[in-house]
């Protein structure tokens, strides 16, 4: 899932400093699961803002809502009749959701309430670890299912480098070396020859905003609203 971290309260307070009516919009999917921007986090943030502003003698009117997803038009549309009654919106969705919301209501300032931190696994409640940087050309087939882009400090496609040190990375003795792990995994599977295959460099210069069209689907003539 996409994981995010709530921004420091002071930063959020600063963003909305000039506003007197603000909507806090959560997202009920990824950011709800990672405890950063779901219904509960929306309620907590609203309570914090309400109290902080009343204590400063600058009371604020707040709205709170949590959409099923902010990366889908059909859910954003649920705010069509109300968004305009707010001076600004603080979104607790990931960066994708925040932008789609801002695009839907271009005349209203939309502020990020979270910092989006990546694509991660759920290690435990409240504990997430990044596993993928969505590079667009997955090499997990040759790396024993371990992503070198994310887990190797240098993002090497062909590793390890000379800094590998008994299973750990030269950047930090606590940081496992991804390529050591890849070696061990492939060895265990009897597929060590895979590590010899040279993976060509990724064409990062082609990293323009990407779009994705699944097979069997067509792009609509004009984006629907």
């Amino acid at each position, binding site marked *: 899932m996409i994981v995010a971290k709530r921004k420091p309260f002071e930063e959020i307070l600063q963003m909305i400093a000039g506003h007197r009516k603000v909507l806090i919009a959560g997202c009920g999917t990824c950011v709800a699961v990672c405890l950063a921007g779901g219904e509960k986090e929306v309620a907590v943030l609203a309570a914090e803002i309400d109290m902080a502003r009343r204590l400063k003698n600058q009371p604020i009117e707040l709205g*709170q809502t949590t959409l099923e997803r902010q990366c889908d038009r059909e859910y954003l549309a649920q705010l069509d009749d109300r968004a305009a009654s707010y001076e600004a919106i603080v979104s607790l969705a990931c960066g994708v959701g925040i932008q789609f919301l801002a695009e839907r209501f271009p005349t209203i300032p939309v502020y990020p309430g979270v910092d989006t931190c990546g694509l991660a696994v759920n290690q435990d409640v409240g504990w997430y670890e990044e596993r993928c940087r969505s590079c667009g050309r997955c090499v997990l087939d040759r790396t024993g299912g371990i992503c070198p882009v994310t887990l190797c400090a240098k993002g090497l496609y062909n590793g390890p480098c000379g800094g590998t040190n008994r299973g750990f990375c030269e950047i930090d003795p606590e940081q496992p070396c991804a390529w050591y792990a890849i070696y061990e995994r492939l060895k265990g599977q009897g597929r060590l020859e895979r590590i010899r295959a040279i993976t060509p460099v990724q064409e990062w210069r082609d990293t323009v905003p990407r779009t994705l069209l699944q097979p069997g689907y067509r792009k609509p003539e004009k984006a629907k609203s």
Partner: protein
Amino acid sequence: MRLSYPANVKIILVPCTGKVDVMHLLQAIQRGADGVYCVGCLEGTCHYNQGNLRCRERVERVREILQEIGLEPDRVRMYNLSSGEAPTFVAYAREMTELIRRLGPNPLKHSKPSIRLEEAA
């Protein structure tokens, strides 16, 4: 044993302190309570193993939030006792009451929150 504790303490029963949520504590303060404290079983004796430990963590979180918004963290506290210790319960109620007296009334008492729930249509 019948003991009396300060009359300003209003008791809210929960099945286990693990049921207490950050929002319960925040809302009490938001709506003008001068202080809130949770009284859980002794650590290590929770019938549900973790309930009172979770409650302590939530209390800690709320104390941080109070600090951030400019209120005294001590308005929210956690206490532990075993259910047989009525005198300790009374002692905690008195301690909390005195502490809150020293801090004075919650400044949020004089105004009301204005938060509207926008249901997704």
